[in-house]
């Protein structure tokens, strides 16, 4: 596009933008929605804090019963309740992807199929393999969680995600520029980290492959941290 065209496009954008008048009034419905949201966040925060206090108290009481009288001192990490990290056999991994402007993006859903509550935290290692079984060379970058991208409030307990049996966590992914172009469908694997083990990822769109738009540029994979599944 020539510079003249670019200038003309800039002029078009400015003229269209000028159609929007200055704001004089604050919509009452928006203020009411905002107040409800703040109130809800406050309730969630208070409830979360209460759960933590009750849980810590219960943990201290249990430790006290097991080991006799114990004096809790600030910063004493031994006084916190133990948590069980999720392991690969506890989880089922499904990816849901769609094509988006030269990339495929979506999320990996991790469902607790075990019988006990377990926790996930941090960011998993995600690998992609060609239909011939060769691992695709990827430049992996960390992306923000979906809740942050959406401007949503920080989930309770973040960055630890607690999964009751049957509930699910999510990991945001976006794969771009699959170069050299893969000839067949791809398959995904997810390593939980911290010795949790590796999961095969199934699901709709797992075989989607983005186009090779820049042969001289690396294939990139953006991976978000574990986060509570929206609506879960």
């Amino acid at each position, binding site marked *: 596009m020539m510079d003249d065209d*670019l200038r003309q496009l800039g002029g078009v954008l400015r003229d269209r933008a000028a159609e*929007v008048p200055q*704001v004089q009034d*604050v919509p009452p419905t928006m203020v009411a929605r905002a107040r409800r949201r703040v109130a809800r966040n406050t309730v969630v925060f208070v409830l979360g804090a209460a759960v933590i206090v009750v849980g810590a108290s219960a943990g201290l009481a249990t430790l006290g019963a097991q080991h006799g009288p114990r004096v809790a001192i600030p910063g004493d990490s031994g006084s916190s309740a133990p948590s069980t990290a999720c392991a690969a056999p506890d989880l089922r991994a499904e990816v849901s992807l769609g094509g988006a*402007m030269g990339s495929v993006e979506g999320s990996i859903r991790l469902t607790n199929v075990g019988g006990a509550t377990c926790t996930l935290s941090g960011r998993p290692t995600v690998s992609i393999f060609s239909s011939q079984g060769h691992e695709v060379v990827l430049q992996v970058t960390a992306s923000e969680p979906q809740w942050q*991208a959406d*401007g949503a409030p920080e989930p309770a307990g973040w960055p630890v995600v607690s999964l009751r049996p049957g509930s699910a966590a999510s990991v945001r992914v976006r794969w*771009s520029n699959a170069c050299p172009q893969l000839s067949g469908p791809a398959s995904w694997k997810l390593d939980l980290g911290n010795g949790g083990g590796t999961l095969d990822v199934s699901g709709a769109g797992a075989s989607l492959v983005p186009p090779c738009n820049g042969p001289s540029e690396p294939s990139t994979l953006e991976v978000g941290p574990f986060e509570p599944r929206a609506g879960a």
Partner: protein
Amino acid sequence: MSRLATREDADVTDVPGGRLGELYVRHAAEATRLAYLLTGDRQLAEDLVQDAFVKLAGRLVHLRDPGAFDAYLRRTVVNLANSHFRRKRVERTYLSRTAAEPPVFGEAPDTGRRDELWKGLQRLPIRQRTAIVLRVYEDLPEDRVADILGCRPGTVRSLVSRGLAELRVHVRSDDDG
């Protein structure tokens, strides 16, 4: 200079809604303009901006740097516009619909080149459109756009370049037609 940081000197101390109301009066117009350029729909733009303010309402206490608000707002508006098209799958439907129908956006069936540019822009994929609007209208540097879109600056260059190329093809084909 950010386009969202406007009306800094406006008298906004006596508005309903407290601090949120002040920020709305100060920033909503520019945010709506950005959303309008991204969506091509005035009503949708206003709805998205109100949604953005509601989302940000719970975070005002965390915005210790008042100057950071317009960056938060811009990012939220862009994310909401992207989410809208992704969630509703409106873009795909819209593309197929507009391929067969006369102009959708614009008040009059003006066949002038400026209207063709506007209509062509609205037919671009949302990420290309967003990159072009942030670079050309908001005049943001590539690294800021990359930060908002969650990609590398090289990807922003590619998005803008491919978007402008598609726009040129669109305008040319309309000129030919």
